[in-house]
C-alpha cells in the first residue's frame, strides 16, 4: 500500500533526470534537493538525424545539454570548407558562449542520430540567478571556470603570439 502510494505521489522521472544531471560537471555545485528548481528551467526537445540544432552565425541564447544520441559540431574555415570540430556524447553540453554573450554561434551543431536535449534558455538562467541564487551562482561559476580554463590553455599553447596581440591592441 505504502509502495503504491509512493509510486503514485512521486515522479520516477524526477529521480532519473536528477541522476543524469548530477553527473554533468555544469551542475556539480547543486545539492540533491535543489534539482527540482533546475528541472523547472529546462526544456526538452528531440531532433531527428541530420537536423541542425543551430547554425554558425545564428544569434543564440540557449545552452544545450545532450541527454541521448550524438551531436556533431562543425565550423567553416576561411576558405569556406566545413570542418568537423568534435562529436559530442550524452552528458556533454554546448552553446554556452551564446548563452552568456548573446552573440552569433561560432559553430554549427547537427544531430548525428535521433537526439534528446535539454535546453537552458538565458531568461530561465537569469530567473534562477534571481530566485534560487545558489543554483544560478553554481552554474555561472562553472561557466566562468570553463572559460578561464579555455583561455589559459590558449595562452599556454601560444603565449608569444597572444602577448604580442595584446601589445598591438594596446598600441591601437
Amino acid at each position, binding site marked *: 500500500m505504502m509502495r503504491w502510494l509512493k509510486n503514485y*505521489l512521486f515522479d520516477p522521472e524526477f529521480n532519473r533526470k536528477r541522476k543524469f544531471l548530477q553527473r554533468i560537471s555544469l551542475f556539480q555545485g547543486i545539492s540533491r534537493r535543489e534539482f527540482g528548481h533546475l528541472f523547472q528551467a529546462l*526544456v526538452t526537445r528531440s531532433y531527428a538525424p541530420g537536423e541542425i540544432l543551430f547554425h554558425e552565425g545564428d544569434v543564440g*541564447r540557449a545552452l544545450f545539454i545532450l541527454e541521448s544520441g550524438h551531436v556533431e559540431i562543425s565550423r567553416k574555415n576561411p576558405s569556406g570548407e566545413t570542418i568537423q570540430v568534435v562529436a559530442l556524447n550524452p552528458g556533454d553540453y554546448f552553446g554556452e558562449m551564446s548563452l552568456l*554573450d548573446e552573440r552569433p554561434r561560432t559553430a554549427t551543431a547537427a544531430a548525428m542520430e535521433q537526439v534528446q536535449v535539454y535546453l537552458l534558455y538565458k531568461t530561465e538562467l537569469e530567473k534562477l540567478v534571481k530566485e534560487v541564487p545558489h543554483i544560478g551562482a553554481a552554474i555561472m561559476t562553472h561557466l566562468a571556470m570553463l572559460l578561464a580554463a579555455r*583561455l589559459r590553455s590558449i*595562452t599556454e599553447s601560444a603565449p608569444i603570439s597572444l602577448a604580442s596581440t595584446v601589445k598591438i591592441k594596446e598600441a591601437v
Partner: protein
Amino acid sequence: MTLSGRTFIPLAILAAAAYFLFRIHEILLPFVLSGTLAYLVSPLVRLFEVRGFRRQPVVIFLYVLFMSVIAISFYKLGLAAAFEAQDAARHMPTYVQKGGEVLARVRGSLNSSLVDYVAEHGRTWPQDILSRMPSFALGVLPVLKVVFLVPFISFFIIQEGPRWRDIVVGWVPSRYVEMTLNLFFELDNSLGRYVRGILLEALCVGCLAGLGFWAIGLQYSLQIAVVIGLANVVPYVGPVIGGILGGGVALFQWGGIAGVLKVLAVCAGVRVIEDWFIQPAVLQKAVRLHPVVVVFALMAGAELFGFWGLLFAVPVAGMAKVLLDVLCPWYRSQYGFDSPPPLPEVNRIPLV
C-alpha cells in the same frame, strides 16, 4: 518585395488561425478563463513539483482544497448576503423616504428636467426590473455553463503544465526554437505576473475599500467592497464603481452630501494607496502599458467582444506588446540590423 514560400506559408497559416479564432471567439471564453485559472494555480503546483511530486495527485489535491474553500465561502457569503438583503428590505421605507426628501431638496434648488424625469419615472423602475427578471435568469444560463466548464478545462491545462510548451517547441522548426522559447518565457513571465498581480491588487483594493467604508460607518460596506474589488480587475473602473455605489448608499443612509463626500474621500484614498504602493509592488515586473494604450485597448475590447473584451483587453494588449518586444529585437539581431551587446573591455588587461 516578394514573399518566398518559406515566409508565405507560415504567415498564411497564422492568418488562417487568427481568422478561425475570430470566427469562434464566442466559445473561447471558457478556455481563456481556464488559462487564467491555470496561471493562478501553477506556482502552487510548482511548489510540490520541485520536491519530486507527480503533477496529477497535486492538482487533484489542490482542486479538492479549492472547491471546498469556494463552497464554504459561497455558503458563508450567501448567508451574509441574505441577512443584508433582509436588513435592506426592513430599512427600505426609510431609504425611500430619505431619497424622496433629497429629491425634493434638489428639485427645490435646481428645478432641473432630469429631477422631474426621475420623479416621474422612478416609481415604475422597480416594476420594470422585476418584469425583466425571467429573461435575466435565462441570460445567466451561459454563465453557469462557463462556471462548470472552466474547472473542467483548467484541470487538464494545469495537469499537462510545461508539457504544452515542450509539445509546441517540438513542432517549431529547429532554427526558430530559441526564438519561440524566448517568446514563451517572456509571455509567461509578464502575463503570469500580470494575472496574479491584478487579482492580488483587486483583493487589496477590496479590503482597503471595505475597511474605509466600515470606518466611516457606511452600510453594506462588505458588499460594496466586493463589487469594487471585482470591478478593479478592469483598469480605472473599480474606484468609479465604488464612488457611484458607495455615494448612492451614503445618499440614502445619511440623506446629505456630507456622506457622499466621505465615501468619495475613501475612494480617492484607496486609489492613491493603489497607485503609489500596491501597483508598484504587485505589478512590478508585469508588462507595462502606456495609459493611452490601456484606454484604447479597453475601448477596442468592449467594441469587439463586449464585457469580456473589456475584461481581457489589457492582458491581450500586454501579449501584443511582449510579442513585439521579443520579435522585433530578434529580427533585427538575426538579420544584422542590430549590433550585439557590447563585450567587457579586454584589450587593456593582460592575460593573467
